[in-house]
């Protein structure tokens, strides 16, 4: 049989269909990482650490509410405690898939709510090494995703997915994500810049089951080119708390209710 190899590939096909595609892995991962529960609350402590170990702290309460299904619209509300001079500042985002987010900020010192343009999702979130996209997710449609291989991280089996941006808007050229095979949380992510050099490294440093939902409670992002890194801890976490939709409004930006921000 001259064309034996066609049969061989045909023989492999069913196996391929059983395995998840890159897109599917990333979709499941996004759902597990950014969308669990109807809503979510955490006290977030971010440490911004420069090459010499000098630390700056950002502390905030983050509230998230899903409007629809995983991968759909979300609303975020953030209330800042630290640094001291930004206490009472609040920040709100309406996140839409496949469309620019809406963002507002309340600046207490001048008692002003300002809409903030969101055209640059790759800019740094409050001066940390996380971008807005790293915090609230990047549209899956912006990249192509391909399963590279399977690999263990510690004792966890992972699927390694390579994502490559379709356009040129990203500051990275490609990234590899290690997705836990069991709970689909991303355990590690390596971003490469457009020159192909290692750029940023994300690691999920500590997991916990919160209301039996596996949650990354400690994470860090390191810029491998500048040596700057950011460590994030989620404290006082809770899911499905019944956060009202009305909270995500200009009125509450100016005067956030105590019960939600503390």
């Amino acid at each position: 049989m001259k064309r034996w190899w066609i049969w061989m590939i045909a023989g492999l096909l069913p196996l391929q269909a059983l395995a998840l595609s890159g897109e599917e892995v990333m979709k499941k991962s996004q759902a597990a990482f950014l969308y669990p529960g109807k809503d979510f609350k955490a006290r977030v402590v971010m440490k911004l650490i420069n090459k010499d170990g000098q630390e700056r702290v950002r502390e905030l309460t983050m509230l998230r509410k899903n409007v629809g299904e995983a991968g759909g619209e979300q609303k975020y509300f953030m209330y800042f405690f630290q640094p001291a001079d930004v206490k009472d500042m609040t920040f709100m985002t309406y996140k839409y898939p496949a469309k620019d987010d809406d963002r507002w900020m309340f600046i207490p010192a001048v008692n002003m709510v300002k809409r903030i343009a969101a055209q640059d999702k790759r800019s740094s979130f409050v001066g940390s090494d996380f971008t807005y996209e790293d915090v609230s997710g990047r549209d899956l449609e912006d990249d192509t995703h391909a399963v590279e291989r399977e690999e263990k991280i510690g004792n966890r089996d992972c699927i390694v997915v390579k994502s490559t941006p379709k356009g040129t808007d990203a500051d990275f050229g490609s990234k590899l994500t290690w997705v836990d095979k069991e709970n689909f949380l991303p355990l590690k992510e390596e971003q490469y810049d457009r020159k192909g050099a290692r750029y940023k490294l994300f690691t999920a440093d500590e997991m916990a089951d919160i209301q039996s939902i596996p949650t990354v409670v400690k994470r860090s992002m390191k810029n491998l080119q500048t040596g700057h890194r950011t460590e994030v801890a989620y404290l006082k976490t809770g899911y499905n708390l019944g956060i009202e939709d009305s909270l995500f409004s200009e009125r509450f930006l100016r005067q956030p209710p105590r019960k939600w921000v503390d």
Partner: protein
Amino acid sequence: MLLLAGLLTLLFLTQFPKIRTDTNPKHMLPDTSDVRVWNDEVDKAFALYEDTIVVGVENAAGVLNRETLGRIARITDGILALPGVASRDVNSFTTITNVTADAGTLKVGPLMPAAPKTDAEVEALRAALFGNTLFVNRVISKDGKTTAIYVPLEKGANGAEVADKIREIVAKEKGPERYYIAGDPVARDTFGAEMFKLMAMFSPIAGMIMFAAIQYMFRNLALSAAMMGVSMVAIIWSMGLLIGAGFPVHIMSSMAPVFLMAIATDSIHIFNEFYFRYKERGDKLAAIRETMAAVSRPVRYTALATAAGFAVLLFMNIIPVQVFGGLIAFGTVVLRLLSFSFISAVLTFVREDRIARAAGSETVDGDRTAQALGRLGAFGAARPGITVAVTLALAAVSVWGTSKIHVNNNMVAWFKASSEIRVADTAMNQALGGTSLGYLVVQSKEPEFMKRPEAMRWIEGLQRHLEALPEVGKTFSVADYVKRINRILHDDDAKYDAVPETKDTVGQYLFLFSMSAKPSDLDSVVDPVFGKANIWVQMKTWDAEAMRQVIAAAERYQKVNPLPVTVKPAGIAYFNLVWNDEVLGDLVLGFSLALVVVFAILALDFRSLKWALIAYAPLLFTILFIYGVVGFVGKDFDMPLSVMSTLSLGMAVDFAIHFVSRLRQRLAETGDADLPGALVWTAARPGKGIMRNAVLFAAAFSVMMFAPLTPYVVVGAFIVSMMLLSALLTMLLIPALVMLGRRWLFA
């Protein structure tokens, strides 16, 4: 013996492939020096880049049109993809952070995310550029004809490679624009290339000229070859030692081959005397013996003086100068050892008939040069009063000229005015805020202090105060960002182009800014805890004086407006200033040391303080005259010149040593009776050797006057004039002084 020398030479030669050049001006001072430690600290505190290439784009019709902007966008994209470039912090129209308000929405993001497609977009960009003080004179010239792309380099990146790649990128664009590639890394690499040129091209040319000159003077190939061979071996040994010991070749040491070749010409005195003696005696071996007896002492002492003059440099603070001093001192010793053993050996091998023919004209009576020199000496001896009076008058004028000397190191000015780097620098300085960058670091002991409105306003006031200086083209600081945000939040109302009233407002504005800006935008102007602020000061000249003015202005400002902060200068412009002052300090120290050492050697050689003083005179007047000229011409007194003056003492004294030694030998042989006769004889006979030596020396260095870097040109001109002048003064002034002081001398 010869075999050993050959083996050693081979050994040193094997070191040559390891050669590296160091053209980083920072390395002029040790890395433990205060200024370098402090500059490193500042770089760290504000996450600054050590090296930035600046690409200027100029369009006589203005850069704000769709075509040019499209090119700028493409060029920037190309640059961002280059290895070695710190892409995240490249500042160009497409990447620099802008703060604007659009229909009530605050926008912090790149100024021009993509090239405009319509003329309306171009006009919007124009408005954004000229409406923001952070941009004018930084990324856009006031006339709109020039923009700049700032390309910071990662640590350890190869600046020359990146610059070449940028040249390739801009070469692809066909259009009316002109491109300038400037910045420290480019200057350094151009410098390195020129240094190699000097060593690889100018040194051999100098060698050939000397060879031809020696051949013309002595008409014997074996002798000329011997002399050149000796100098080659000395060069190979010293350069091999330098490279093998791991030292990089620096601006100073790149001149070493020419120096060693020139110093080797001291052996001329051996030949000179030998030819005279041979002519007198007709017996070669006897002539050699007598020659060595007559000449060896002065030659030994002149070598000692030269080596000592260079060894003095070891006490300097500037590293390349130390290395250079050690290198030449070593080379001089090698030269002397070789010429004593090797040259006299060659003399014995040379066939007698050849020498007889070549030495045919070597008599004091039959030689025109010797006669002319003799007349010169005779004039000095016959009219000592006039000679000394004229010299003193000239000296007085020179002292006046010396007072006009201006110490300055401007490294960009080391390149010729037509060089790519100078053209780029001049164009950029005319169009934009200035290529010379200094920092003023405002420090408080209290964290968060810089967020206080009074601190912000103080910084802002200091900026305005500095910008009043003609040398300062642009300043920027954290206050500029705060003012910008205040204004934009209040609907771009010019009334709010000011520092807000409370510390919290400042803090919140900066927080807001940091939510979208590049991290480096804030990091480069404040430290993480807001205890320090960094004011960027762009100057339009690399003259060290400009930074001195800035520092003085900051001090005045602080006196009038007291605030509990300290202001410390930093950056490359400040480094240049410190280094400049070190040069001056070194000059004074080195010059005094050399004066003492040379006098001590003279006194030791002559065993007489009186004779030492006489021999000292031509040297002093030569230096004085040259300094006078430097002062009158208005040439900056920079590092190469200051090193030259120290060295020149050790080299220029050679002639006087020969003259006085031989004069006293002559007097001892013929008795003291005919002093004028002895003076004329010395001027004519050893004098011819002196003149030959001076001419050869000058010939070697004259090549450097055609070098592409001005320090080489200056050094060339300095040595040529010094050699000729000191030879002349030796022949003229010493006879005059000896005649005037004969009672005192022979008492």
